[in-house]
């Protein structure tokens, strides 16, 4: 894993134009602002849909509120693109950062969770004649979605407090949470 991480860092670090852009005066703050705007769009739309599945505002047909989801995906795309900018500009600050590992883990889990929704209960919950109350499986997925996205936000906010430091003489171990070969 540490070898893969080192390969990733060197691959990302080779994208020089992004790195240069991000280190201009407005590069980083602009990308951060868009990252947070995307987060807000994602939380506002996906959480409202999830809360509806959990039983809030049963007067709104689920299939109508589902039209918010593309906006959530837009927000997600915005955070993903701007997130990639950070990653390409300072790869070692993320690839070796334990908070980032958790963030990616929660993101992947949230992705799987959303796919599960579409593979299982989607038709039953969003059909034209679907009952106002979502099935239990959809509620579990909705609760997991809220939990996982909150975890992504927390892990993301903790990134700066778990910045990796250069590895000691014992080396990076299986999963590097320090910067290997820093002094070489």
């Amino acid at each position, binding site marked *: 894993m540490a070898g893969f991480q080192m390969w990733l860092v060197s691959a990302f670090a080779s994208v020089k134009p992004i790195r240069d852009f991000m280190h201009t005066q407005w590069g980083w703050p602009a990308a951060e602002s868009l990252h947070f*705007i995307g987060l*807000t769009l994602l939380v506002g739309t996906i*959480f409202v849909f999830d809360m509806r599945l959990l039983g809030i*505002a049963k007067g709104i047909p689920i299939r109508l509120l589902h039209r*918010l989801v593309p906006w959530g995906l837009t927000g997600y795309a915005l955070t993903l693109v701007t997130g990639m900018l950070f990653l390409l500009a300072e790869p070692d600050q993320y690839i070796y950062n334990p908070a980032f590992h958790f963030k990616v883990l929660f993101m992947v889990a949230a992705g799987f969770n959303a796919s599960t929704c579409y593979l299982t209960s989607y038709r039953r919950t969003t059909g034209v004649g679907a009952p106002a109350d979502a099935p239990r499986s959809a509620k579990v997925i909705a609760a997991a979605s809220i939990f996982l996205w909150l975890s992504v936000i927390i892990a993301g906010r903790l990134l700066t407090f778990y910045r990796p430091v250069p590895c000691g003489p014992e080396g990076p171990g299986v999963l590097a949470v320090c910067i290997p070969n820093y002094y070489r």
Partner: protein
Amino acid sequence: MANSKFASISCACRDLARRIVDVDDDSRGRGVSIAASSLSYTTPPMDPFLVWLEATPLSVWIRESTSVLAFPGILSAHAIGMGLAAGINVAFALHVLGVVPGFPARELRHFVPVMWFGFWLNAASGLLLLIAYPTKALTNPVFYLKLLLIALAMGLFIAIRRLTFHEVADDVPAPDRHRADRKVRLCGAAALACWAGAITAGRLLAYTYSRLSASW
């Protein structure tokens, strides 16, 4: 005694100050020099308060504690509150702009308590962050811009709620309904702009501050 009063007189009142000095001939030199020096006096007058606030145990704890519940935890809460407050307001705005058609806006009222939960979570966490670094925020114009944009956005939320949640009954004449419709769309678009601005201003606080602390 008189001189200490002159020190606090603002530039706009310098003429008045000079006239008082003229009467008290003895202290003229000193009086004028104090009035003039107030022009180049750069430390804001609220400094003693900021110095005191930054030395309170709560401020020191938030800034210096290594606990994940201190600064990192408060920042996380602030990000979550932002997602809930701004995010649900964005969903309301998207609805009045017509992107989620098919149901009346008042059905969204059930999400309002969650929005207020996010709002108060952010008021509280924001206050704690302010207590940790009062000088950093209060000496930065961008901070006041952020507060202004949030106030405007919340005002727009209340306007949207008033225009849609307590549904103007069907007996309202059609032209009036359409006018209300246009007004509420305008509010929705303005709310989106205000939230985007507030979030951007908030993010810029980390880059635009001129002083980190009143005492160091």
